[in-house]
């Protein structure tokens, strides 16, 4: 079993973000970087299946030089090798990103490296485009299931479950397939010390992809307008309880 998992380096933000002067990025001077929780789960899922069924897992990202940090972090969690599609700082739209990933997959294929399973996060933490995995699947003519929170690999097929309001939708697709996962599919591990040391020696290939033209171009970022909400303070400590109960009655949450 060969699994490719695709991740994206994003700033690890707090409760408030600051924008750069040109309003085209977040100020990251004092921020760390991470990947989205969905992607952490995708990495964990890849590692667990390789641990179970054997094979090789590969983690890929498209990003700046610094994105190697996120690849190494995945390697430390047990992924076997990494591919960095190294680009200048700045954004690539989902179409461009998918084309670059597909090109890298095809290049690997020409060298005899094929994948049985492609894992993505359901959407990136920052841009939330929901489509890179789908686009990759189309280019490779593979089935794609999105938003998966439960995965079984049996008899060369993937049984996937997606959570909906009424329960679980079950999908069954033959491998190879593209599957985008959501947080909750597993509880991702932290990298171990041993894994972190091993990760330093694992191979990371670097490729410089060509830009193919973005159809979705970010102009600038902004903070949403303040809602102008004025919070009504009901008091401090237990002294606030009567007012809270009054509120619950006003809202008809409890009978008055």
């Amino acid at each position: 079993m060969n699994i490719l998992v695709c991740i994206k380096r994003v700033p690890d933000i707090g409760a408030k973000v600051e924008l750069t002067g040109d309003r085209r990025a977040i100020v990251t001077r004092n921020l760390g970087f991470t990947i989205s929780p969905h992607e952490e789960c995708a990495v964990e899922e890849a590692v667990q299946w390789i641990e179970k069924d054997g094979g090789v897992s590969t983690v890929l990202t498209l990003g700046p030089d610094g994105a190697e940090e996120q690849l190494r972090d995945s390697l430390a969690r047990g992924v076997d090798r990494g591919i960095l599609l190294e680009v200048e700082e700045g954004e690539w739209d989902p179409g461009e990103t998918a084309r670059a990933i597909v090109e890298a997959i095809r290049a690997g294929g020409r060298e005899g490296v094929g994948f049985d399973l492609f894992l993505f996060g359901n959407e990136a933490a920052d841009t939330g485009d929901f489509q890179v995995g789908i686009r990759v699947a189309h280019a490779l003519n593979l089935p794609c299931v999105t938003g998966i929170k439960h995965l079984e690999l049996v008899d060369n097929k993937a049984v996937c479950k997606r959570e909906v309001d009424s329960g679980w939708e079950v999908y069954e697709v033959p491998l190879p397939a593209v599957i985008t996962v959501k947080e909750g599919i597993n509880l991702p591990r932290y990298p171990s010390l041993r894994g972190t040391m091993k990760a330093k020696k694992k191979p990371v290939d670097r490729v410089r992809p060509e830009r193919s033209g973005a159809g979705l171009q970010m102009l600038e970022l902004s903070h949403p307008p303040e809602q102008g909400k004025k919070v009504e303070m009901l008091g401090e400590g237990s002294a606030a309880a009567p007012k809270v109960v009054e509120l619950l009655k006003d809202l008809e949450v409890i009978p008055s």
Partner: protein
Amino acid sequence: MIIGLVEHDRGVLEESSLQMLTFARGLAARMETSLTAVLVGPEARPLAESLKPYGMSNIILAEGDRLEHYAPEAWARVVLTLMEERRPEVVLAPGTDRGNEVMGHVGAKADLPMAANCSGMHPGDPFKVTRLRWGSSLLEEAVVEGDPRLATVALHVMEPEEASLFNEPTMEVFSPVFEDTDFRVRVTALEETVADGITLKTAPVVIGGGRGVGSEEGYAVLEELAGLVGGAVGGSRVATNNGWRPHSDQIGLTGNRIAPELYIACGISGAIQHMVGCKGAKRILVINNDPEAALFSKADYGVIGDLHEVLPAIIREIKKG
């Protein structure tokens, strides 16, 4: 023409589709063009009636035996076929899991860009959109290319609103030609979970606990209050990461998005990711011992104090009658 793809789950209309249609109607007016709503699948036919008040010139019912179960690529095929036949200027779907999925397939198959989760559109040349980023804590101004423009409409940016004046739309049944691969991914089974009473999604009151709860046992007091007010209990990502609550209880960007009448957030400072999950709530009451907690700025009501002191007092007060 603007095409709006209506989402439903086995004949049950999603409110998000009405939000999308309201959004699309406004856009059509600004672009001086017509709006066509598209319903997919045999179970969708009865929904047409309820769409009419939202003001569209045309409702297309895409039908076919194989559309009985949701299949994202087949839904995409419907849209793609209509795109070829009708040459719409814009195609919209709600920014739900399905809406984003289907439009992602449309964009991929047609090799067109797709702008997910738009909160605003500024037609013209260039055609600009405003998209939500980081859940919704940042807005992005972007140019979308392609003909038609493909986009999904972010949830809750607009409440459903019926048109003040509308004409009876024409109804049309449409049977596209499918390829086998359109059904390679489809719902093969449905495992219904019997909702044991109140869920996070349906509860009128949700009580959320974060870092301030401190432990798995700490949730007992939240559960007790939930029992008294007919509410459900959820947690922040801190709570699920610490193993205090199962992931299915997580409220936030990567967990549940809730929309109760009242959300009581206890000991949650209010990371962006959490705010995304609870912004659908009609009213928010924040209980936190840090008056500077970011969530207070999004709250309607606030109590400064330790939740382990405040909640028991509320419970006593309720029991007192």
